[in-house]
C-alpha cells in the first residue's frame, strides 16, 4: 500500500521495480514531478516521503510501499487557493521557468516542518540538493523566509 496525496494505491508486483518518479508521472499523471537528470542530482523530482524530501527518481515503487508520498499536487487546499509557501514563491518572484519549482517548494516545506524559523543559510543548506538555473536562489530564499513568518508567526 502506498499513499499518494491522501489516495491509497496497491501497486501490483509488475510495477514494483519501476522508478517511483516514472510511476507518479506516467500512471498517476502527477506531472508536477519533473525529471531533470534522472540520477538524483538536480532535485526536480523531489517528493515528500513521510514528510522528508526525497528524490523520487532514486526510489523504486517498492521502496515507497508502506509510506506516505506527497507531491506538489498534494499541498494546495482543495478550493484552488495556494498553500502559504506556494503563495510566498509567487509573491517573491521566486519562479522563472518553473521547472525546479515543484521540487523546490517541497524541499522547503520539508525544512519548515522541522525548522519553523530557519536562517537564510539554513534554507540554503536545506535546498542544496535542488538546482535552479534561472533565479540564483535569492528570491527562493526570500520566499521561504517570508512563508515561515506567515506559517509560524512569532508571538509578540
Amino acid at each position: 500500500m502506498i499513499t499518494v496525496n491522501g489516495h491509497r494505491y496497491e501497486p501490483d508486483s509488475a510495477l514494483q521495480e519501476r522508478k517511483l518518479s516514472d510511476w507518479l508521472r506516467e500512471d498517476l499523471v502527477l506531472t508536477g514531478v519533473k525529471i531533470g537528470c534522472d540520477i538524483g542530482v538536480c532535485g526536480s523530482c523531489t517528493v515528500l516521503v513521510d514528510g522528508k524530501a526525497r528524490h523520487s527518481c532514486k526510489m523504486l515503487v517498492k521502496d515507497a510501499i508502506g509510506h506516505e508520498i506527497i507531491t506538489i499536487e498534494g499541498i494546495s487546499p482543495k478550493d484552488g487557493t495556494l498553500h502559504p509557501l506556494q503563495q510566498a514563491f509567487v509573491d517573491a518572484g521566486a519562479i522563472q521557468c518553473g521547472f525546479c519549482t515543484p521540487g523546490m517548494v517541497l524541499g522547503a516545506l520539508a525544512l519548515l516542518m522541522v525548522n519553523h524559523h530557519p536562517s537564510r543559510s539554513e534554507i540554503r543548506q536545506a535546498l542544496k540538493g535542488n538546482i535552479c538555473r534561472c533565479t540564483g536562489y535569492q528570491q527562493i530564499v526570500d520566499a521561504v523566509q517570508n512563508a515561515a513568518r506567515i506559517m509560524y508567526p512569532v508571538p509578540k
Partner: protein
Amino acid sequence: MKPAFRNDAYAKVTGKAKYTDDYTMPQMLHAAPLHAELSCALIKSIDCAPALQSPGVVRIILAEDIPGQIKFGQIIRDYPTLVHKRIRSTGDVIALVVAESRAQALAALPLIKVQLQELKPILDTELAMSETAEPINPEHGSNVCNYHRVRSGDIQQGEETADIIIEQSFSTARIEHAYLETEAALAHLRPDGVIEVIGSMQHPFSTRRFVASTLGFPLKDVEVRSVPMGGGFGGKDDTAALVCARAALCAYLLNRPVKLTYSREMSMRESYKRHPYNMQYRMGVKRDGHITFVKVRMVADGGAYCSVTPWVTWRSTVQCCGCYEVPNVHCDVYGVYTNNVFSGAFRGFGSPQVNFAVEQLVEMAAGKLGMDEIDFRRLNMVKQGSTTITNQVLDTHKVSLKQVMDSVLKEIDYESKRARCSFGDPQQDKWYGIGLAISYRGMSLGAEGVDFNSAILNVQPDGSVLLETGVHENGQGSESAMIIIAAELLGLPVESIRYRQPSTSNIPDGGTTVASRGTLLGTGATTEAAKILKGIIAETLLSEYKLKAERYENSRILTKDGQIICSWEEAIKLCYSRQVYPYAFGVFQAPRVDWDEETGHGNAYFTWVYGCQAVELEVDPKSLKVTLLNMVAAHDVGKAINPPMVKGQFYGGMAMGAGYGLFEEVPLKDGGVIPTNLHQYRLMRATDLPEMTAIIVENPDPTSPSKAKGIGEPTLEITAPAIANAIYRATGKRYPDQPIKLRADR
C-alpha cells in the same frame, strides 16, 4: 516592493503547468536517437534488422527516409537532421528508433549495428585553420566558418604613441546551458494535413523552419505551438528545433503522434555549448592613462556545425575593446569548424568571453601605470556622445556607465574595502579580495539580422482582452511584462488581459527570444498595438459622445481634463454595436543599424545597456577554495516594467556568471563531451552563492516604445571578470583562463 506579477505563476507553483514531456496523446509512439560513437568517420553500413525484432519497435528511420532536405541551419545549411554518410561530431544522430514505449525505443538502440570507417578528427582550431587541413564541411570549403574585423584609426600610430604595452592571452571554456528541462517534442499529423508540434524550444518560428525543411512542407502546413519551457538561456534553438524536426519526421512517416524526449545524457552529448575562445590581446596606454590602441586576435571554436557562430563572433568583434574609447583598433575574429561538439547561442552571446579578457586587461594596464583601476576606467570609458570603436556615436540614449559604476562602488563600499585586500599575504589565514567589472552591451540583434516584431490586441465583446506577440516566453516573464504594459496603457487591471498561447500559424514571426530582445521587442510591439487600439476606440467614442478620449484609467475612458466618457466595457460594447472591431495589430521595427564588414564600422546596435558588478570573496590559502561573500550589480534597464522579475534576471545572471568564473567547463575527449550528466558538471547551488544586491537603474530609453531595454544577458557578462579581479586582490595572482582554477605553484 510590490508582489511579483506572473501570468504563469499559479500553474507553475502548483505543478499544473504542462511542459512538453507532460503531454501525451492517444496512439502516441516514442522515438529515441542513435548517436555516433566517433567524431569523424564514414558510415559503411547500418544494420537495423536485429533492432526491428526488438519488442515494441515500430520502425527505424534513417536519413534516406527524409522527404525534404536532410540538412538545415540558421545561417549555413550544414546540420544533418539525420546523418547520411559522413560523421562530423559525436552529437550526430544516425537513426531514430520508434517504438510503442520509450523504454522499448531505448532498449532497441544498442541493437542497431553501425559500421564506421574511422577518420582522423580535427580538434584544434589552429590546425583546422591551416592551409592543409581537410575541410570538415566541404560545401563550405575552408574550415574558417566566418571572419570579422575592425580597423579603426592607425594601429601603427597607436603603437608609437603608447608609453606602456601590455600583452596577454586569455582563454575561455566551452560550457553547458544546463537548462533543467531537456529537449523534448511531441508531433502529430492533423486531419487537415498540418503537422503540429509542441516542444521545448525558445523560437517556435525557427523550429517551424527546421520542421518544414525536413518534411519538404510549406510553412503554412507546419504549426508550432509554445508550451512552458524549462529554461533555455540561448540553448534551445538549433538542437531543440532538430529534436522537434525529428519528432515531426517520425509522426509524418508513421501517421501517429510521436514524442521524442531527450535524456540528460543525450542532451549533454548533442546540444551546442558556449563557444570556447582563445584571445590574444595587445593594449597600449599613455602615462596619463589613455588607451592608445588595442590589437586583438580571437579564435572561437564553432565545432562541427555553423549554428550562429558568425553572429556570436560578430558581437565579440563589435565589443572587442569592452566599454572603452579606443582610437586605434585592429581586431581579427575567426569562427572555426572542428570536429568538436558544436557551439551556438548562449546567454551573453560572445560578450562573456571578451569581457573576461578586457576587464582584467584594463586592471593590468592600470596596475602597470600605478594608476587606480577605477580612475583608469573613468578616464577611458564611453560617455555621452562618445564614439565607439566601430564609429558609432552614442547619442540616442543616456550613456549611464559612470552612473551604474558609481552606484555599485557606493553600495559595496569599494574604496575602503579595497584597502583590506590580502594580495596573497602569507601572514593571513584567509585572503580577502574585492573586484569589479563594467560593460556596455548592444541591445537586441543589431546588424546580425532583421529585427521586428508584432503584437495583437483583440478585445472581446465583454471587454476582456487577448494579447499575443511574436516573441516567445523563455521563463523570464516576458509575457507578464507585455501584460503589464498593455494593462498600463489601456487602464485595465492585469487580470482582464490574457496572454494567448502562441502559435506560429496565428501571428507573424517576431524573431527569436534571444539577444535580450524579448521584453524590448515584445513590449515595443504591444505599445504600438495599444496606440492603434486606442485610436479605434477614440474614433468610435467621438462619433457617439462628441468627446475626445485621451485617458484610460481604472477601466474607464476620460477626456484630457478628466471628464469620464464611459466605462471600458461600454466603449467596447459601442464598438461592436457600430460594427467596429476593437482589434489592433501593432508592429515595432527596430531602428536602422548598419555594418561594413570590410572596415568593421557601423551603427552596430540601436541602443546600449550599461552595467557594473562587484564581488567580495575569500580564498583559503591552504585549500585555495574560493568563497563568495557578496555580489552587487547595477544595470540600466531603461524602465523596470516588473521590478521583482527584473531583479530575478540580475540574481540569475550573477549566479550563472559566477559559475562561469569559478566552475563551469565541458571537457572533451576526441571531440565528444565527457560529462554525461549533471553529476559531472558543477552548477551553482544555493550554498555556493552569497546574498546578492540588485540595483535597478532607470534611464528611459527614447528608442524603445515602452522605454525598457533588455536585461537577460548584461547580468551575466561581467560577473566572471569581477571574480577574477577579486581573486587577483585576494591572491596577488592573475588568472587569464576561465574557469579560474587557483594554483599554488605560481
